[in-house]
């Protein structure tokens, strides 16, 4: 079977499928090597729900305009400027053509979900979420003649000079090799390898939860970096959010998210506040709270809210801890009761006029003389029953990845590797140096998946 395929695509999520379909449409014979079993195919794409899309005028489910400059400004804001602007602009500009490209390959869109109206202009939601997108792509790929091997774990890419000469993988616990003309790596980050995370983060990483697929262990990434393929990004940078501390270790996905932070105070295990909970609307701040919680003792936070705020955010899958008094709540959450009461009283005393409170806008209802302050939605925590959620760091994907150019091609210090391309989370660190912009992962995956597939097909058919 070595000679049967022009292109091996490593990975089975959005980026891999985008590359595989594009290459197959160009006439290439494509094999997808997906580590996961069929039930878990699709990597982190299974858990996604939308992609961020530039557009002029209404487009599909998207309203108004979302211009290149505004999109880029949003990106620069979350990355603090740590981005490759050329690649960022490429992703942004191409995103506007992606929507119809996706529709043509079976993806269907729906209006923004209830509770996510703030994304109606910028993010196009997949009907049924990311798994239905993945299902549609696998069906389309099959029609295009793409073959898929599930439970096929790539163990080694043999780099000889400026070419990948061989792909080694195991399938049903037997070793195999093939030598395709071109290889596309779209196998995600390494976040599910807790040991690697621990090397990058220190022991704190043992307490992290992995929000997505348990199959992204970075085996191919590590193998390529070992052989001198150039990397981008820092090993301790990732898309990390604060999620419900009761979430499963892996694969908890969207339902473990907590949107209550702006209406709460968040304390650490010492019952002390550590950051402005009301800095901005949650969709613009959720991605920094993973790191904030990671920096606290035992990597835990506790969001405390009272009765008047319990219905202001989308429900989590886990019911909140509920108590009639702050002391009882502290007891149930393993906090010192006197310290929690002191923190809440100090916060309450710093709250002022709350008549302008508005849950979905920056309302300027702020504390005075408190450090750290709460700059919006600051209302006293006073009305029983009291509710608490424990927060932990949930890692979506890591940013240390393969450095690519605007043709998605990988390189070593000596120059480009002639037949190796990368797409998706495994190269997203090129654009996301830090922080995260909702829906951008799927944009990067689609844009660079298509580029990688087209370039690989061009190479395979000279």
């Amino acid at each position, binding site marked *: 079977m070595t000679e049967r395929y022009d292109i091996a695509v490593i990975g089975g999520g959005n980026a891999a499928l985008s590359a595989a379909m594009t290459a197959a449409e160009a006439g290439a014979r494509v094999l997808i090597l997906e580590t996961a079993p069929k*039930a*878990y195919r699709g990597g982190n794409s*299974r*858990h996604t*729900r939308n992609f961020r899309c530039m557009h002029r005028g209404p487009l599909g489910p998207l309203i108004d305009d979302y211009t290149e400059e505004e999109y880029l400004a949003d990106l620069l804001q979350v990355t603090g400027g740590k981005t490759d602007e050329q690649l960022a602009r490429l992703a942004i500009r191409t995103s506007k053509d992606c929507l119809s490209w996706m529709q043509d390959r079976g993806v*269907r869109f*729906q*209006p923004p*979900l*209830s*509770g996510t109206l703030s994304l109606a202009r910028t993010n196009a939601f*997949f*009907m*049924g*979420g*990311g*798994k*239905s997108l993945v*299902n549609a792509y696998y*069906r389309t790929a099959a029609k295009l003649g793409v073959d898929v091997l599930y439970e096929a774990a790539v163990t080694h890419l043999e780099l000889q000079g400026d070419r990948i000469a061989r792909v080694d993988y195991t399938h049903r616990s037997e070793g195999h090799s093939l030598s395709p003309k071109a290889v596309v790596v779209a196998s995600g980050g390494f976040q599910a390898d807790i040991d690697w995370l621990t090397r990058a983060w220190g022991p704190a990483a043992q307490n992290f939860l992995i929000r997505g697929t348990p199959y992204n262990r970075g085996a191919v990434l590590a193998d390529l970096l070992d052989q001198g393929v150039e990397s981008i990004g820092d090993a301790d940078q990732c898309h990390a959010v604060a999620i419900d501390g009761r979430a*499963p270790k892996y*694969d908890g*996905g*969207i*339902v473990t*998210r907590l949107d209550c932070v702006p209406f709460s105070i968040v304390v650490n295990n010492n019952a002390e506040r550590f950051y402005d909970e009301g800095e901005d609307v949650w969709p613009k701040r959720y991605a920094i709270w993973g790191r904030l919680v990671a920096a606290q003792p035992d990597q835990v936070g506790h969001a405390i809210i009272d009765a008047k705020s319990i*219905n202001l955010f*989308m*429900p*989590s*899958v886990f019911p909140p801890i509920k108590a009639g008094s702050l002391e009882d709540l502290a007891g149930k959450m393993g906090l010192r009761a006197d310290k929690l009461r002191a923190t809440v009283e100090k916060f309450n005393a710093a709250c002022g006029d709350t008549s302008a409170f508005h849950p979905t806008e920056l309302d300027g209802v702020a504390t005075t003389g408190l450090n750290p302050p709460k700059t919006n939605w600051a209302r006293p925590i006073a009305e029983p029953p009291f509710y608490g959620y424990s927060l932990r760091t949930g890692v979506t994907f890591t940013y240390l990845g393969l450095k690519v150019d605007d043709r998605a091609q990988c390189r070593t210090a000596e120059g480009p590797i002639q037949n190796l391309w990368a797409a998706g989370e495994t190269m997203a660190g090129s654009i996301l140096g830090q922080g995260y912009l909702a829906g951008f992962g799927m944009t990067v995956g689609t844009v660079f998946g298509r580029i990688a597939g087209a370039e690989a097909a061009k190479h395979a058919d000279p």
Partner: protein
Amino acid sequence: MQTLDLIQEARRQAGICNACRYCEGYCSVFPSMHAGRAFSDGDIVQLANLCHNCRGCYYACQYTAPHEFDLNLPAALAEVRRDSWESFAWPQLLARRFHTHGGAVALVSVLGFALILWAIRGLGGNGDGFYATLSHTAMVAIFVPAFLLPSVSIGIGLRRYWRSVGGQRVRLSHLMTAFGKAVRMKDLAAGHGEGCNFEDEDRFSHARRYAHQAILYGFLLCFASTSAGTAMHYGFDLHAPYGFWSLPKLLGVPGGILLTIGCGWMAVLKRQSDPALGDVRAWGGEKAFVLLLGFAGLSGLLLYGLGQTPLMPALLALHLGAVLAFFLLTPFTKMAHGFYRSAALIRDAQRIDTADRKN
């Protein structure tokens, strides 16, 4: 499992769905579910009866087994749904005998044939055509109670349902919205209008929707045919047999064809589908019901085609027996779904109406 266990399991799953919401665009279930934070038993029963088992949400779900959340909402709601029909049914003695017992459906059908045969032998005919075999008076004596008793039973069941889901006074606009969805079977079309996931895993297809509509409209045409015959008999003194260019035949023949093809198609689709995404225990009962309904249509057509042959008396017994069994079993078989789903759609129209008024 007991009613409360079934509701509890559906509630557990709905809690996960409500925190995800990815399936919001597929059907009427999710917008209704996402309107609340906690689900009473009545809420779960309402959601269950809104669900058309299109299975789009199952194949789109990232939390199905082997994931530890083990979501299978179509199955959980199907079990609650069937259990709700059994709980609301009157008389209770018969409530749990047929949904999960295909054999019992077959037995009643055989008893139906036997009763008609006995009537033919014992009461005999008096008139032209079929009436030469079984008199009009005898048919009326059998079918008037066979129609009225199930109607009363369904009415009692619906009233119990309406109370349990907190239904309000029905307005014309609610009916328009609800039946507007039902006539197009919108909830089997997915939000993007490409059908449901039934006979071939996650592939969207209109097959089940079209088969269902063939059955629905075939049944309605047959019912209209009988009603037309009744009106002609009593209102205009026009007695059967009727020629082809008469209202009963013009409605009944296409109706019988649609009903037969629809039921056959549905039976095939059902066999191709994954039973684990529905109410596994009711699979046999549903299958028997589809076959009985299809047989009622087919035997009616055969009776029309072979009515002038010596086979007629036997075919008449089979057809009338099937129709008799079908009517009597309506409150206790899958046929009840049409009434409860319509009620659920009306209740949902009320919910949307109330929400719109608040905004």
